């Protein structure tokens, strides 16, 4: 259960992996997958063959080894030749990294800003369209649990069905309702008028849904619209100005850093520095290591930004429904 609805449902050091649990199999930071544990089940990856039966009764966070056959190329590990992985308890953050991409998804930076700026707390009711791959939906559910509710809409039938299955598998069904509906042309259901503390829109033409979002929100409720292109933001802001206030547009990026045990070359050997150069031909033929004389090494942990990063995900526009008479 990804978001525990009672204290005993959460993964602790004493809670053991049982049949039916979803675990996140961690190979590397950028290589994970979600696996539903079942008796007799088998996972095969580049580190070998892993039997689910070996996982039952172990705590989340444990390290499990492949069973001989096909092992090879493992990540070191104690047992001869056997590869290993770690079995993690699923969280909305891990889910975002392992879910099937049915659409472009939101990642942790946008998600956490959305939850904070929508001012979601337990008990809130939040509406979302479209559901997409359910990446944000899962975090919305955690934010409003245990007594709140997420109503999410997608016009794409297959997508809604897949999302519903995912939520079911992750134990979120009691928090999330998935409906098939084209919010851009039909708006949110009339009967939900004034029901939402917050509304989130990730639509190609958000301006079409904004009047309906205004009707669906409680007074002073917060709307967020996510769009990759600035033209969508411009039209959305224009549509918001009549009924919304405090309209603010943000962009959030995450810069990541890489760490290594470093060794910068020094330059303190002044005698060498003052010596005349040797004939150039001979120097060229020396192997590189031999020419590093006069250079000292100093060692420490070095850190620098990673070279590549997501340069843009989208713009987040937040606005608050104007309170009558203000």
């Amino acid at each position, binding site marked *: 259960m990804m*978001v*525990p*609805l*009672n*204290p005993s449902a*959460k*993964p*602790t*050091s004493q*809670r053991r992996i049982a049949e039916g649990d979803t675990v996140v199999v*961690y190979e590397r*930071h950028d290589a994970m997958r979600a696996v539903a544990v079942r008796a007799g089940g088998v996972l095969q990856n580049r580190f070998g063959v892993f039997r689910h039966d070996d996982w039952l*009764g172990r*705590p*989340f*966070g*444990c*390290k499990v080894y492949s069973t001989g056959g096909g092992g090879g190329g493992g990540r070191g590990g104690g047992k001869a030749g056997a590869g290993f992985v770690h079995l993690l308890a699923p*969280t*909305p*953050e891990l889910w975002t990294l392992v879910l099937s991409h049915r659409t472009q998804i939101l990642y942790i*930076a946008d998600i*956490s*800003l959305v*939850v*904070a700026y929508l*001012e979601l*707390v*337990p*008990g*809130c009711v939040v509406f979302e369209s479209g559901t997409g791959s359910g990446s944000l939906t899962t*975090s919305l559910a*955690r*934010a409003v649990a*245990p007594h709140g509710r997420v109503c999410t809409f997608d016009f794409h039938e297959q997508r809604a069905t897949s999302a519903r299955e995912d939520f079911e598998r992750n134990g979120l069904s009691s928090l999330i309702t998935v409906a098939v509906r084209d919010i851009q042309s039909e708006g949110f259901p009339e009967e939900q008028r004034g029901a939402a*503390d917050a509304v989130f829109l990730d639509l190609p033409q958000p301006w079409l849904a904004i009047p309906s979002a205004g009707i669906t929100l*409680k*007074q*002073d409720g917060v709307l967020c619209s996510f769009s990759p292109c*600035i033209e969508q*933001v*411009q039209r959305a802001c*224009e549509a918001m*100005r009549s009924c919304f206030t405090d*309209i*603010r*547009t*943000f*962009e*959030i*990026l*995450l*810069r*990541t*850093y890489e*760490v290594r045990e470093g060794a910068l070359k020094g330059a303190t050997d002044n005698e060498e520095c003052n010596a005349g150069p040797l004939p150039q031909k001979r120097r060229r033929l020396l192997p590189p290591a031999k020419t590093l004389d006069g250079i000292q090494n100093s060692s420490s*942990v*070095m*850190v620098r930004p990673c070279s590549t990063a997501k340069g843009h995900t989208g*713009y987040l526009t937040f606005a608050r429904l104007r309170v009558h008479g203000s």
Partner: protein
Amino acid sequence: MQDAADGHVQNETRDNRSLVDNNTAQNLSSDDIEAMKRDGASGDTIVEALIANSSTFGKKTVFSQEKYKLKKQKKYAPKVLLRRPSTRSICETYFKKSPARIGFMRVDALSLLLSMANVGPYSDVLVVDMVGGLVVGAVAERLGGTGYVCSTYLGSSPSSIDIIRMYNLSSDMTSRIVQAPLGDLCSLQNSFNASSVLKDSIQAEGPEPNTVPVENTEPSIPQPVDTTVSDEKVQSSEIQPTNIDISEPTMDEQINQDDNSSLDCKGNDGSSIASKSLRAGKAPSPERMKYWNEHGFSSLIVAAPGHEVESFVADLLPLLSYSAPFAIYHQYLQPLAACMHSLQVSKTAIGLQISEPWLREYQVLPSRTHPHMQMNAFGGYILSGIRIHNGDACNGIQ
């Protein structure tokens, strides 16, 4: 923003070629303005007078006209917004008014900490909060009266968590905030003897260190939060990361008293809110301590922006459940790098990543959309990861 000021740049015929820069364009002197103020003129009236007395206003482009107007309005007729406090507004206000107090933690960094530490219902969140209580309050808000936030501290003196008074916490939510010295948590962890565990924690429970009285005792009738903090309390926040002035901000966000409807559904999911003399930051009960010792905390957040965190984290990590995520905030990169490196070497955590959020706000207006010209260029660094069971034998704890 004025909807009327829609003038598209491309249709302009006026430009500023004939404007001469000689500072004589305004016919109203500063004495005149002072006199108007003394006579009780409103800010809007003064702005109108300034426009009427500007010899160049009419020659300016629509864009320049509006810029002029906004500038003058900001100076003479500032607007005040009333709004209920939330993590968002509390963090934004502190970041603007006294960023050093909260270790330069911007709202996007705080939001990331909460996500990265998987804070949700029934979480038992271990927190090191040396940012005045900002993190403790934000976690309590997310817990919504379930689970626990255990604020731990080094040495014998708890860190100030005064900022939690700014949050609109119900008594139910406040009761979920406990404080315990790291030593007690560690000694529990190290002892396999349940009785010594209980002894230690009972000892800790005695004096209720640094208990913060919560003004807001009747959450069903929200009160404006207290905006001033006594000198004594400011002095007690001794572990501030830097030495700059840490005067308390004047919160302009206040509870909107006429707007209970939207508050009703939130924060206090119908449970008991009756207790009057509620206090945050009690010591946890022995049973609670025993539970945490056996089950581990569900996650960890460290916000100690003036400290080395490497050894800190080495002490804290064993207190977590296996598979529990953690997030460590810092205003400097190097301490996080050292910490990440030692975690990599010790193989006690995986999924390690140092990240820095980069937040940008935009002005979106017809024909003049662009990022804000001034920005907060820095909101802090975060090291995140997941505690793992690093033994090869995997059938029990420890």
